[in-house]
């Protein structure tokens, strides 16, 4: 008896959660492809929902997580709207984004001077409807992204309808998140003879409207354009 009432209660709660989540929908519910068919396949909307945040978690340097985030950003920019990169300490290298299906004039690079300016610039960029995607390293500017700022960014993305791509260290994993999708990225060593492929193991930690963790393996071709080549 007890177990049955418990399961009923759980069901009620699940419905309640679904109802609450259902009420929380960005104005434009279209989605934009992640740039990877395999990743799209495990996302409920076959891509990232516009007007949401996506967290890319990765451990250490050189993991290639930003490459994946930029692939998604460049896909989102196919609409012709702008891409804002809130760069960290001036080390963003624009030629790397060249040739990924984005026009030079679409790219706006912002160099904020401190955490407050960084958060503000990201907020403003997400809030603007002219921005298709904003890429940022919110934890690089001294201190982790705090919950209130995170929530504000999420609301900003919802208002602007663009995609907020936040590249974060894996240490952020236990922290609460306002992102629609959380991905943990881990690089895999290359196995091909010519080394043209780059491979990752991507763990879908959380996704609104989807079941528990899913693992997917992605790869891109370094020589051809990642976005065009990988399908």
């Amino acid at each position, binding site marked *: 008896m007890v177990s049955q009432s418990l399961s009923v209660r759980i069901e009620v709660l699940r419905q309640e959660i679904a109802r609450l989540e259902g009420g929380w929908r960005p104005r434009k519910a279209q989605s934009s492809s992640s740039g990877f068919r395999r990743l799209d396949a495990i996302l409920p909307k076959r891509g990232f929902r516009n007007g949401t945040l996506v967290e890319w978690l990765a451990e250490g340097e050189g993991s290639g997580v930003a490459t994946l985030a930029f692939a998604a950003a460049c896909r989102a920019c196919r609409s012709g709207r702008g891409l804002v990169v809130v760069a960290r300490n001036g080390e963003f290298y624009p030629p790397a984004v060249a040739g990924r299906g984005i026009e030079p004039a679409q790219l706006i690079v*912002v160099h904020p001077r401190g955490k407050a300016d960084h958060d503000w610039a990201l907020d403003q960029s997400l809030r603007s409807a002219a921005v298709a995607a904003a890429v940022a390293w919110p934890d690089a500017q001294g201190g982790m992204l705090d919950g209130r700022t995170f929530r504000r960014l999420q609301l900003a993305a919802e208002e602007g309808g663009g995609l907020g791509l936040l590249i974060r260290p894996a240490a952020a994993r236990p922290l609460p998140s306002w992102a629609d999708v959380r991905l943990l990225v881990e690089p895999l060593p290359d196995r091909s003879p010519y080394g043209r492929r*780059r491979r990752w193991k991507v763990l879908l930690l959380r996704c609104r409207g989807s079941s528990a963790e899913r693992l997917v393996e992605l790869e891109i071709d370094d020589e051809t354009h990642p976005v065009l080549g990988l399908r």
Partner: protein
Amino acid sequence: MKRILCLAFDKKCEIEFLARWCARFSPSVGVEPSPPAESLLLDVTGVAHLFGGEAGLGETILRELGAKGLRVQAAVADTIGAAWAVAHFGSKEEGGRRKAEGGAAGCQLSVVSCQLSADPPRGCPADHGPQTTDLSSFILHPSSFLLVPAGQTLAALRPLPVAALRLPAAVVLLLRELGIRRIEQLEALPRRELLPRFGPELLEHWDRTVGRLDEPLPVHRPGLRFAAGWSPEVPIARREAIEAGLAELAGRLSEMLRRAGLGAMQLECRLECTVGDPLEISVGLFHPTAWARHLVELLAVRLERLRIAGPVRHIRLAAPATAPLEPRQQELFEEGGGGNGEAERSLGLRSWVLGLGFQTQDPRPETQGPRTKTPPASPQPLAPLVDRLSNRLGQDAVVRARLIPDAQPEMAYRYVPLVKRRRRLPQSVPLLRRSSAFHRLSTACSKQWHTAAPRPLRLLATPLLLPVGRPGHHAKHGRLRFSGHVHQIAKTWGPERIETGWWRGQAVGRDYYRVETTTGRRFWIFRNLRDGLWFLHGVFE
């Protein structure tokens, strides 16, 4: 023979306003920017008889300016230079000399009217006799009018100091060091010695002043001025009140701009406080706008970072630089319906076309064609965002990347501030497109933008020296220490040899390798060909 009237004001004043006001005396009015303060130049050739001769003209001008509370030194002469020189230096010199000589006659300057209070046409007999030209009083009552009769320019100039030739300070100083203080001393020097010793400027100014060279009048074309001011009844200190005042002014300004079909490219706000210096805020805009709310937002962001010393007694808002808004046929059922929003949305559309579609000299017509011709389905204004970001973070912090065809990785791009570039080229798009230099640049960028070997997303500001076990050891087989981690290199691709920079005097020879660690992380390292040292330059993030 030309006749030029110069008005020298004793303090900085609204010169553009006065220039417009002076249009009642002469069809061509110029503004001479030489220090100490700007002066006005009026071409009065063939005009003077309308005012009863040059003397009458001078009297009229002095009287009317006096009624405005302005003190002015005026002079009429044959050339711009002479009029300027006599207006600025004539009265003092003349006054001093006359005083020394005890009012001896025989000078070339005819003093027509010296005091406004003793103004004959008004017929108000003042304390001083109407025509008693007590020249020593010039210094006390500085409004004066000096007339250099036609053809006597040189004679009038001789006693004046050399600075009257509008020379650069360095030249004046040099002349003074040589003991040459007056123009007559300069005149006595052999002409061919002047050029090598004092540079071409001296001769040029000298020739222009005496009329050997023609000098065009820098005619002031009175553009429309967009400014609004507000003085509260009592000085206000609360920020909300100040912002409300600003919003009111911005509304007025935007209305003025809209009527003229212009948008502000620059915004200047001046807050005069009861204590301390006035606060000045200057905002550059990415794109011309006449949207009051946007203007207020930009100002408010700057205002909240300023410390206002005391209550504000006057606020002035001006748009010193403007550019035309392009007309657009309005939609019948515009979303939102607000008057301001409409105009701005039309701007947004245009900024879209010009801001994001102009670099389209691209060899892929099938993908590029439609974007330039028809803007995306729901164009949104990017300009307000760029304005807001540039305004708070600084113009250099909000940039667009321009790729440079340079083999050296760190030289292969340049950041161009978005707002600054717009301000330098305030014309509308078609002009930008037509400009050949711009066209060349944009085509160069576009071509380059699509060709590149794999490049890392993160390029270290300065390459990091990699410690290598023994000399000559090949780092690409070794370990790589970066930000606290040691990575074992498993694979390498390369080298990509880059030898360049010799032509700018900083020859660079590097062999770049892409390396992958055992955990699949990728880095970009290079060996310096000069000394064989290894560096980490980029991270394939």
